[in-house]
């Protein structure tokens, strides 16, 4: 698998120091959404 961190100056990840943090953020938000949806399912069903 290619290196997930970019080498060029203009390709540096915004906000975080590394693109890996972005990937973790996207997956974490998905997990939070699934948890929230599970809560809604239980609450309204």
């Amino acid at each position, binding site marked *: *698998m*290619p290196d*997930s961190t*970019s080498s*060029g100056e*203009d*390709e*540096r*990840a*915004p906000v975080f120091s590394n*693109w890996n943090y*972005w*990937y973790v*953020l*996207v*997956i974490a*938000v*998905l997990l939070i*959404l*699934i948890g929230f*949806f*599970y809560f*809604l*399912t239980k*609450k*309204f*069903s």
Partner: protein
Amino acid sequence: MSRPDWIVLIFTLVGIIAYGLYKSRTTRDLDGYFLCNRSVPWYIILLSIMGTQASAVTFLSAPGQAYTDGMRFVQNYFGLPLAMVVLCVTFVPVFHRLKIFTAYEFLEKRFDLKTRTLTSFLFLLQRGLSTGISISAPAIILSSLMGWDIFWTNIFMGGLLIIYTVTGGAKAVAYTQQLQLIIIFGGMAIAGYMVVHLLPSHIGFLDALRAGGKAGKMNIITTGGTGHGFNWNDRYNLLSGIIGGFFLQLSYFGTDQSQVGRYLTARSLKESRLGLLMNGLVKVPMQFLILLLGVLVFSFYQYGHEPVFFNESQVKLLEHSRYKDSLVQLQKDYEAMQSAKISDMSRIADDPMQAGVSSSDQLRTLVLSSEEKKMYYRNTIRRWLNSPDIKGDSNDTNYIFLRFVVDNLPKGLIGLLIAVIFLAAWGSIAAALNSLASCTIIDFHRRFSGNLISQEREYRLSKWYTFAWGIFCIIVAQLAYNIGNSLIEAVNVLGSLFYGVILGIFLVAFYLKRVGARAVFISAILMETVIILIYILTQKGMVNISFLWLNAIGALGVMLLSTLLNAFTTRSGSKPT
């Protein structure tokens, strides 16, 4: 439609065409026409990939899906954020480094010409047909609901966008998608507000969710489990959404030129990645909100008169059949049932603790019993429509949301929401035409033409190819009319038949470095045959598997088979090509 609706509709559509033409000033070469000179910022990339994925069917079908089957359809998108991460790590850096026009160019660099040509051909076949169907599906619904002529609806749905797509290429596509999505989200937000606003004064947003929940419409997370294990034929559950959805979205965003062509226009790798990752963050909530609209419409009808069947043109068919007397009686009984339900619902809301029973329990009992009665009437109509002498369309899911709009929203807003359907269709069709033209010129015309042609001529040819694909898709749309509502399903099935194998080829290219061209080419042909065979057996009822799994089977099958073939040929003494 009223005059204000027509004014809003025409003003919006003409405005988009004018904006597209205004943004059409591109460099007169292929780089400008297909890649916007690689100058697009991440937020346009985000809106462009969202606009390409969200077709008219997304906004017509999803609320109806939630209305009939509940919100579990959202799980279908759980694999998307994971696919965005894998794309950003693997696919996108390679595509940017190679400075390619189409994703399939990479396959020639990695394997050989025949693998590139096969994959590009499969894309053209699949995307050309499904774009035709994408024109036809909303056109059928609109023509049926509004009484418009289907021929002209197809022409307007698929034809007007050709003006700016041919003239401006990828730049016009990307920038009109930005404006289209703003109008679409605005229209859907107003529709959502109006549903809640139209509920009885004592019924709030949470009450509406409770009413929907009691009827099982808030089934957002489902496991797919039955008393006897996992149901492989269950389309929407957590497992199929994450695994099946992951393969579907990875193949769509990673190997379908209509999407790859969007993020290749980014000014840098960073902008491509940001656009895709933002899509991973916002797509699931967006789909959730569209589905929630369907639940709210369901709740709205619990407190008001709900049509017994949402596709009125089909009810009219029955009015002129041998069932006409039975239909009159059925409608009379149904209206009586509806009136009783509305009065009971209002009574529960006014007096929550009748006879010591909580309003929640009363609500559940009432909603479930009225759903049961309603299904009896709806199923009777479906049975009549399915009878050999009628041969009607017994599925009205895609008519639910628009029927609600037409029957209940104020003048002007109806025109806006009809415009939303047109714009959603245009966004995805324009991107598809652009990508079909880019593959035709780059993967076929330029690659196989012995003559060196000038940049100016390539640019002019690209415009002609875009125009020709536009005409082809409209012809497919006109021919597809007789298939009816199953068109929408056909788009998904058609994608699943090819996507898995195409993704498998790309995954071998990225991850199985030792596998050569011959092994992957043979594996792709064999697996495509297997996938089509599985689909035929499923249609005949001999295999019980949801089409969403075909993507995973196709992709993993190509990887496994090509590894085995490669090992075999290497052991036999031949080197991987």
